[in-house]
């Protein structure tokens, strides 16, 4: 391809956009990145549908009867298919923490209290938030009950726990 010096200049259109510069030696710039995913809850979908009906669905193994407090369509113990069962809406705090800092997404919600809930007759635990107790004042063994958002967001935070 031939290029002729002095030939017509080709200009790109100019924009108002610039670069955020933090430093020049070395050069440090702001680089933006974000994305929306098309996300399927797949086989766990009934759990989220359950939340819209104010139900907590766990998974019970059809072979060994192990009861998981979380969605798990195959048993972690024996590998067999599980079926959905309704968890009790009341349980006890197995452990807890109050977060005063957090991931950027949740910083504005601090302080918030996380709990693992144990349910009578269920083999595993359930992670949720505890509401209605002062930060740092939860107790292991405290009785708690589930409450549900009126308008579902199809997130595990559609359910939260309060003192029973």
């Amino acid at each position, binding site marked *: 391809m031939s290029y002729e010096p002095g030939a017509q200049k080709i200009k790109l259109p100019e924009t108002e956009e610039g670069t955020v510069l933090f430093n020049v030696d070395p050069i440090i710039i702001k680089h933006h990145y974000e994305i929306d995913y098309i996300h399927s809850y797949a086989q766990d979908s009934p759990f989220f549908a359950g939340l819209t009906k104010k139900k907590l669905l766990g998974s019970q193994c059809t072979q060994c009867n192990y009861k998981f407090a979380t969605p798990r369509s195959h048993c972690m113990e024996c590998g067999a298919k599980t079926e959905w069962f309704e968890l009790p809406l009341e349980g006890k705090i197995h452990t807890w923490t109050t977060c005063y800092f957090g*991931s*950027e997404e*949740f910083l504005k919600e601090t302080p918030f209290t996380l709990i693992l809930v144990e349910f009578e007759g269920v*083999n595993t635990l359930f*992670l*949720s*938030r505890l509401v209605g107790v002062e930060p740092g004042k939860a107790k292991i063994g405290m009785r708690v009950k589930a409450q549900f958002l009126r308008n579902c967001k199809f997130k595990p935070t559609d359910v939260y726990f309060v003192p029973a």
Partner: protein
Amino acid sequence: MVSGGITKFAKAHPDMDFRYMVKQAFDYAMNDVPNLTRDMIDGSVASYFSDHFTRQLKAASMVQDYLGLCPKPSKRIEGGGATGGLCFQAAWEAIASGRMNVCVAFGFETMSRVSTWKGNEFIAHASDTNFDYPVGGFYTGYYAMMVRRHMHEFGTTVEQMAMVSIKNHGNALYNPYAQSPMKLTIEDVRNSPMVADPLTMLDICTMSDGAAVCILASEEMAARLTDKPVKIIGIGAGTDSMRMADRPHGKVILLPHESESDYKNLKYPGVHSFRGGRMAAKQAYEMAGITNPLEELDFVELHDAYTSSEIQTYEDLGLCKYGEGGPFIEAGHSTLTGKIPVNPSGGLLACGHPVGATGLMQAVFAFWQLQGTIQKHLGNDHLQIKNARRGLIHSHAGTGTYITVSILEAV
């Protein structure tokens, strides 16, 4: 193992990208074994955790070419916080299988590229993003819940946790590679800002930029390269469920010096202990022929991302029984002059935790200890464990999902 190198771990290294950081550690390691030339290297294994932090897929390819190792074989290993430990073992596998005579394990992380809280968000994406992350995904919160249960089961105290922080930050005063050497008191630790009850800022490791390199070789090649090689005599790894809520409440996996009657009323692992760590230790001890780790090991470099996890890990490794981790630090057994120094380097708490580099950094410190070359590499011999014959390194991923244990021995 025939050589190692580390960059200084720091909050940020804006002057070097990840390629240059690894190059610095690689050159250090190469200079330490002058008999080794680049053409003798058969390939590499790469260790870095997060594509979010790098904002660059296939970053390891860029390191491979930067080091001049193309077209030799290479692959990336990723396993959360245990990435470095897994990479070390992958390099060992390459040698042990006979595929390679010399293998370079390199690791790095560049965590300074986002704010601390965005970084925590990236890391929290290593928890289940359907069920755990959206509830308030925050690793310090998860570990806080784990140690809260440990305190409930065994009576572990926040003061005992603070003692781990004091020990590790104090050891780092003599480690020029460390990011946060500090002389601390229990009050300092407890009065630092509460992050997730009961863990304060000084109970938690920091984010870092850094790189580390280990060079492994077959026995025959090692003998040609150095008169101070270190032998890898035990390898073990374990796992646990991604959601800690799913962990069973069953029986303890016993080590030779324990019996079932020790744990009559203990439901295991629950969320108070790391079953994967116990599994890893058991395998590594069996391979190395170790039956009483406290007596048969001279030091341990373990994954103390939190003071609490160091205490929990004493127990997983069988340095004491389950439930005795708190009294173990309180009695000073894990200090430099104790029965078994733990994290003489300063650990993650004080060295920093550039994830992909961390497990390899532990291997390098253990290597220098066993060579007896701490003075040479750190510029002082305060941290040199006298007559160190055997050391254990332990690498750990989010809430104990992947854990590795490797045992090294002086030759």
